[in-house]
């Protein structure tokens, strides 16, 4: 056992010597490899942190939202239906939600306007999200003009800027009173955007949803579990797509690695010939090649994962920012709760180290089977 260990360590010694002999080539290989690991790992860590954030933040979202559909599009929901739905056994409460979008031509940004169920703020005053405050420069006490449906300007007083740490849910929010909301959009009385339904027992939600659809076939109930699942699948999908895009980079790199491993120079052939003639066996040379690859991939993997973590959680994934921002004007600034686990590292290992290792098996073997007597000829 100790002999086996000693053999591995001896061979690692020589593998390091031979890697260091071709410094420029191997350091460039390591650099490219590390870069690929960094990109894939950043992407995975970022996506995973967002998923966890969504799950943590949305755990108190409405149990169910019921929308009315007309010709495949959302339509205004008669508030009266809320009473019918409230009568369904198992429903604890129904509230009409009033919310919509407002396009601000000056800043070219979309705001989300919403009415708080609690009756706050009072008519004439609003709360604004911190990203809006940052974008427009309005702060507490200022009067903010909003264009009504008639094109007139309506001045509303900012009484509160929503806390910056809640930006991930409230960056673009303007919270206003029901009266102002209806005046602004000429929103008909007796109608709401949709209904939020809460159930006493979450187990009953499916039954309640079935009853609502049965009673009002033109409605669409969306359960909280579906909202959360939407985020899971969006992020999984996006993460997967980014990984697929970078798979091309991985592929290119693997071709490069294959080429490096199989394109034995005359010098390398001579060296392996020498090793074999002085008593290295094919399996020893294979082990040497394995360790050369393992040293590079292990180092690249560990450094890449570390750098990726720092990139995502210390520098807020600044390399991705532009890709994620798209053409939105309002972009929330948030710090994600850091998370890293063995599962993600295993996936990363599979996506980077395993293909690299597979690509070097056959070339390594080819170089290991140089004839031992070749150095005598």
């Amino acid at each position, binding site marked *: 056992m100790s002999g086996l260990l000693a053999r591995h*360590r001896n061979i*690692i*010694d020589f593998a*390091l*010597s031979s890697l260091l002999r071709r410094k420029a080539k191997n350091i460039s290989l390591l650099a490219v490899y590390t870069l690929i690991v960094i990109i894939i790992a950043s992407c995975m860590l970022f996506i995973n942190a*967002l998923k966890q*954030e969504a799950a*943590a*933040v*949305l*755990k*108190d*979202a*409405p149990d169910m*939202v019921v929308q009315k559909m007309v010709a*495949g599009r*959302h339509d205004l929901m008669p508030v009266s239906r809320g009473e019918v739905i409230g009568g369904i056994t198992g429903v604890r409460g129904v*509230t009409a939600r009033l919310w919509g979008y407002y396009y601000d031509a000056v800043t070219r940004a*979309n705001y*989300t306007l*919403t009415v*708080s*169920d609690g009756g706050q703020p009072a008519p004439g005053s609003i709360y604004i*999200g911190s990203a809006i405050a940052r974008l427009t420069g309005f702060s507490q006490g200022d009067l903010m003009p909003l264009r009504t449906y008639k094109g007139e300007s309506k001045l509303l007083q900012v009484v509160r800027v929503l*806390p910056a*740490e*809640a930006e*991930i*849910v*409230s960056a*673009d*929010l303007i*919270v206003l009173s029901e009266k102002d909301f209806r005046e602004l959009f000429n929103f008909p009385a007796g109608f709401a955007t949709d209904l939020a339904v809460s159930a006493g027992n979450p187990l009953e939600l499916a039954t309640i949803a079935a009853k609502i659809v049965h009673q009002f076939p033109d409605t*669409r109930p969306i359960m909280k579990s*579906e*909202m959360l699942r*939407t*985020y899971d699948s*969006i992020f999984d999908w996006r993460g997967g*797509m980014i990984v697929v895009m970078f798979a091309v980079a991985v592929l290119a790199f693997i071709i490069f690695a294959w080429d490096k491993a199989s394109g034995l120079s005359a010098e390398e052939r001579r060296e392996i010939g020498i090793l074999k003639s002085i008593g290295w066996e094919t399996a020893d040379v294979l082990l040497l090649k394995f360790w050369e690859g393992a*040293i590079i991939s292990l*180092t690249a993997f*560990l*450094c890449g*994962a*570390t750098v990726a973590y*720092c990139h995502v*959680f210390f520098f807020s994934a600044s390399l991705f920012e532009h890709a994620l921002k*798209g*053409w*939105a*004007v309002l*972009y*929330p600034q948030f710090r*994600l*709760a*850091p*998370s*890293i686990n063995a599962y993600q*590292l295993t996936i990363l290992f599979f996506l980077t180290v395993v293909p690299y290792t597979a690509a070097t098996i056959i070339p390594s073997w080819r170089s290991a089977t140089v004839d031992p007597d070749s150095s005598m000829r």
Partner: protein
Amino acid sequence: MRKSNIFILITCFNLALLLLLAAHARLGKQNAEVPQAVCAGIVKELQLTDLCLFTEARYTRHPSMADFHAPFQDHPGALDHFPSGSLVSPPRFSHEGL
């Protein structure tokens, strides 16, 4: 010192660094509980359903409230939201400048 020892030390150092980061993540998760509670409070109070990640279109602002044909809703030039939707900006309409 033997080269293999140096390599083993560097690898151990890297692993330790990774473990340290895992510890940092655990700590950071605890620190994030307060802001997350603030967020959850606003979500509960305003009955919000979505994260505010992409504000460019309603199907990206409220993905869980959108429907199957959502990509067609916002403007005639809007393409599917991925991948072009997040890369291509919408055409400028004349009424916007007014």
